[in-house]
């Protein structure tokens, strides 16, 4: 079965620009999560959506927003980009309700802000 798909895989932006990252979850998964991993750092949870509603919120900056669409794909919108936003952005998906729910991560989008 296909895994989590993220696009684009690489993105270069300049300061103060905007960026949109897309995530396509595994088929039939109903929950999507976004994580940010800076250079040499551990993944940090940003936000999650279950059945198109925000489920949990982590350390997501106010400049970022996200949503989940009717086909369960999700988009992370990032505005007023800063140099510190340069990082790997991972999307993960899961199927909530299984006794032992686990998250499946995508390959990530590498964002470089110049």
């Amino acid at each position, binding site marked *: 079965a296909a895994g*989590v798909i993220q696009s684009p895989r690489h993105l270069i932006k300049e300061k103060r620009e905007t960026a949109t990252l897309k995530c396509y979850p595994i088929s039939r998964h109903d*929950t999507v*999560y976004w*994580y940010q991993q800076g250079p040499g750092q*551990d*993944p*940090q*949870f*940003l*936000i*999650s*959506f*279950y*059945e198109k*509603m925000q*489920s*949990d919120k*982590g350390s997501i900056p106010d400049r970022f927003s996200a949503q989940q669409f009717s086909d369960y794909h999700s988009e992370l919108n990032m505005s007023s980009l800063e140099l510190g936003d340069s990082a*790997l952005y*991972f999307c*993960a998906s*899961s199927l*909530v*309700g299984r*006794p*032992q*729910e*686990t*998250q*499946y*991560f*995508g*390959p*990530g989008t*590498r964002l470089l802000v110049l």
Partner: protein
Amino acid sequence: LAKTTQPISMDSYEGQEVNITCSHNNIATNDYITWYQQFPSQGPRFIIQGYKTKVTNEVASLFIPADRKSSTLSLPRVSLSDTAVYYCLVGDAYHSGGGADGLTFGKGTHLIIQP
């Protein structure tokens, strides 16, 4: 969420068994223990999850003592490709009402396997 403590780094040799221990003294009754593996520039990958005693799958074993205040990930006969960062996470797998919480990654263990 229960805080976890694990070694910053470990190294071993091909063919050896590697055990990585994680401490989680304030684990809650509903918490599961989950281990993820991450290679450089790749997303974390689920390895194993357990609640108590022992869990084994095709990749690893997870040993959890009766008090559940620690757990040990055991990787049998490691190879060079097992060089990665291993994260121990403790938390409720999902919350009532639908949806699931984001994972809180602490400082993982950098495992280096040498020939």
